[in-house]
């Protein structure tokens, strides 16, 4: 059973309104996925450019810096909607092991951002080097693996049922 404060979180009026609305929940979920279309595409092209696989005719800094604000917009939209979805069904999602995996992956992503901050911050240095350094390629490859893992764990959240007391399939999407 989830702790009382998780249940209380889910019982708050805004969370209840999102959960019980036939329209608001799917609209937020659609925006969560629209954010992924924006963020997913941008992060992929950023990382593929760093790996030297895509958009190689364009300078690294043009692509990485040009995509950055849109990547951040997509991330904000996806994460903002994700938090609302999680909040609205906090007690239902709380015991879900795939949610725990997803949250653990976010911790790894934050560590990745700290460890490799130099790569993304000093991206103009990469324009001057003939080959993209291994460190930048490692950062890009790990980023792709981490975000694909987040997507997979996220989708699996919808398929887990607690043992003994199966939840209504319509409750978890």
């Amino acid at each position: 059973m989830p702790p009382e404060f998780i249940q209380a979180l889910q019982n708050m009026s805004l969370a209840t309104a999102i959960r019980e609305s036939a329209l608001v929940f799917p609209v937020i979920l659609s925006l969560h996925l629209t954010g992924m279309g924006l963020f997913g595409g941008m992060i992929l092209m950023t990382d593929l450019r760093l790996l030297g696989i895509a958009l190689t005719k364009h300078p690294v800094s043009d692509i990485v810096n040009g995509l950055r604000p849109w990547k951040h917009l997509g991330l904000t939209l996806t994460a903002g909607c994700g938090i609302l979805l999680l909040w609205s069904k906090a007690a239902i999602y709380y015991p879900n092991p795939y949610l725990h995996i997803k949250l653990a992956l976010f911790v790894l992503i934050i560590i990745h951002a700290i460890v490799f901050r130099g790569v993304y911050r000093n991206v103009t240095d990469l324009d001057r080097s003939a080959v993209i350094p291994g460190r930048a390629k490692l950062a890009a490859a790990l980023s792709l693996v981490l975000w694909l893992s987040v997507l997979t764990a996220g989708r699996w959240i919808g398929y887990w049922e607690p043992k003994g007391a199966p939840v209504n399939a319509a409750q978890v999407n």
Partner: protein
Amino acid sequence: MALFLAYDVANNPLNTNEWAFPVCEVLHILGFAVGIGTITMVDLRLLGIGLKKESAADLWKGTFAWTLAGLALALITGPLIFSSDPNMYLRNASFRFKLTALALAIIYNYTIHRWVALKQASGALAVLTGVISLVLWASVIFGGIFIAFV
């Protein structure tokens, strides 16, 4: 509409294997994220609000293969997901909306959108082309999600 009356969905691996359906969904989301994400890059350039150091034509050419790969992945996994319960999907109003929007979006992308991007049009024509593209693809995503809610 029930065109698949003789088809027994119970034998479909997507309904008998615990992993098959969610794996298809993950690949479907990955595919559209790549496809629509790269189309959005061209749109942002057409709108004059992103990637301004590159030309729309260069972005179209640079993202072309990735857009195609992403859309192909979504278009392979989509029919697989559909095969898990075809009659339900055919009766679903949101699914029919999604398919209409998808057909329009794909045709639009490889005709008008392509032409305007390669021509490097600017001003109202470029902005309108970008906006229509974004609206069409967002409609596809919303239509897809609402299948589970109508």
